């Protein structure tokens, strides 16, 4: 297994000395609607202390009076003064969060978990494979690559969405392609007559290639079934399993590896994950009872 580590709190930092179960107050400074049911919240800390995080990490977002949910950070790691989360409205807590207007106070625990460590791909090709809202946890890693684009060779973003209306970060997708030479390929499950793009599975985009498998670092995030098939196609094309990183989602609760809700065999995904390499995950993902 390739060890993946979160950046975590630095020794003596406020994050380290703070009780990990105590939400830190943040205030919504901006709310953007991304799609019909998905919004991005930009948060600023009430205490003014920046929040260092690694691309791929998540926080526990606490909606006071509603509850707490794990949400991946979707913002720029180079901007620790702002914490961004892209949230899909799928339940009571996320409904509260997506309706939070500027000025609303929200509690944050974390950041928790392992990161993408996309810098391990420097000197080679990078393939991002995203499905649905899975593009949001990849966005910080994509921004990292954009900031140091010359250090990577070919960079592909292969993105599958349900319909053209469900495509996230449309303007950024164009910018990543135009300004950062990222080969952005989008496909949808259901296209309308007017849709001129691709219709089909994201795995079909992987099968088309366009990257040097031996030097490729592949990062995948999306529904687990999609990631399983994506990883299989990447492996078929020759990408080493230790160079495939998948972001797993389970029922994260405590965030610090105590409660066991997010256990995947011997791994507590809130601390050992959410990002794990495929050589570790392959035998676990094919087991229905896990």
């Amino acid at each position, binding site marked *: 297994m390739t060890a993946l580590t979160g950046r975590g709190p630095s020794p003596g930092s406020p994050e380290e000395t703070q009780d990990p179960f105590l939400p830190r107050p943040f205030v919504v400074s901006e709310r953007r609607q991304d799609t019909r049911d998905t919004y991005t919240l930009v948060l600023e800390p009430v205490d003014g202390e920046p929040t260092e995080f690694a691309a791929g990490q998540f926080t526990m977002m606490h909606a006071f009076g509603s509850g707490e949910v794990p949400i991946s950070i979707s913002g720029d790691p180079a901007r620790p003064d702002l914490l961004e989360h892209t949230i*899909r409205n*799928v*339940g009571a807590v996320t409904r509260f969060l997506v309706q939070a207007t500027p000025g609303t106070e929200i509690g944050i625990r974390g950041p928790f978990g392992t990161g993408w460590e996309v810098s391990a791909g420097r000197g080679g090709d990078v393939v991002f494979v995203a*499905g*649905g*809202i*899975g593009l949001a946890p990849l966005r910080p890693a994509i921004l990292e690559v954009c900031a140091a684009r010359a250090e990577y060779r070919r960079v592909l973003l292969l993105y*599958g*969405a*349900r319909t053209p209306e*469900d495509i996230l970060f449309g303007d950024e997708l164009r910018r990543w392609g135009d300004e950062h030479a990222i080969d952005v390929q989008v*496909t949808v*499950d*259901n*296209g*309308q*007559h*007017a*849709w*001129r*793009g*691709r*219709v*089909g*599975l994201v*795995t*079909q985009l992987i*099968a*088309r290639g366009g990257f040097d498998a031996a030097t490729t670092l592949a990062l995948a995030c*999306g*529904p687990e*079934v*999609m990631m399983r*098939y994506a990883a299989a196609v990447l492996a078929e094309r020759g990408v080493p399993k230790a160079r495939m990183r998948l972001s797993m*989602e389970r029922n994260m609760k405590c965030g610090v590896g105590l409660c066991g809700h997010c256990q995947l065999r011997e791994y507590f995904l809130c601390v050992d994950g959410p990002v794990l390499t495929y050589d570790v995950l392959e035998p676990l993902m094919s087991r229905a009872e896990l």
Partner: protein
Amino acid sequence: MESIAEYLPQHPFFAGLDESVAALVAGCAVNVHFRPGQHLFHEGEPADTFYVIRHGRVSLEVHAPAGPPVVVDSAHDDDVVGWSWLVPPYRWLFDARATEETSAIAFDGACLRGKCEADPAVGYALLQRVVTVMSTRLHSARIRLLDLYGASR
């Protein structure tokens, strides 16, 4: 642009075909071009052709009542479009419409069917390749039926 005979051996669909079979297939092929909006074929019409897209984009569509057609799949550079030429009753199941300038190679399926029936080795070689295309598209359709992105992650 490469000639059909030069292009075919490099294409994954035709890779590994005996030279004689490849020559036979190339002999049944012509270059074609479609403007945006032009149809390659229509649902229900006799399926006597299949296509390899060299450049461009094609939507496979189904007519839906009280609305525009639904795009169920799309084909792009190097994709193979159409297997109905090999499966009775040899009628297209979908519409295929070019959504941008599209260059393709059109194969005379009716002619190839005759060759397949006359020589089972040719038939098996082509059927193996068409089944691979069918399998990929079937897998894609099945997974998309799960509506993965619509369900809560």
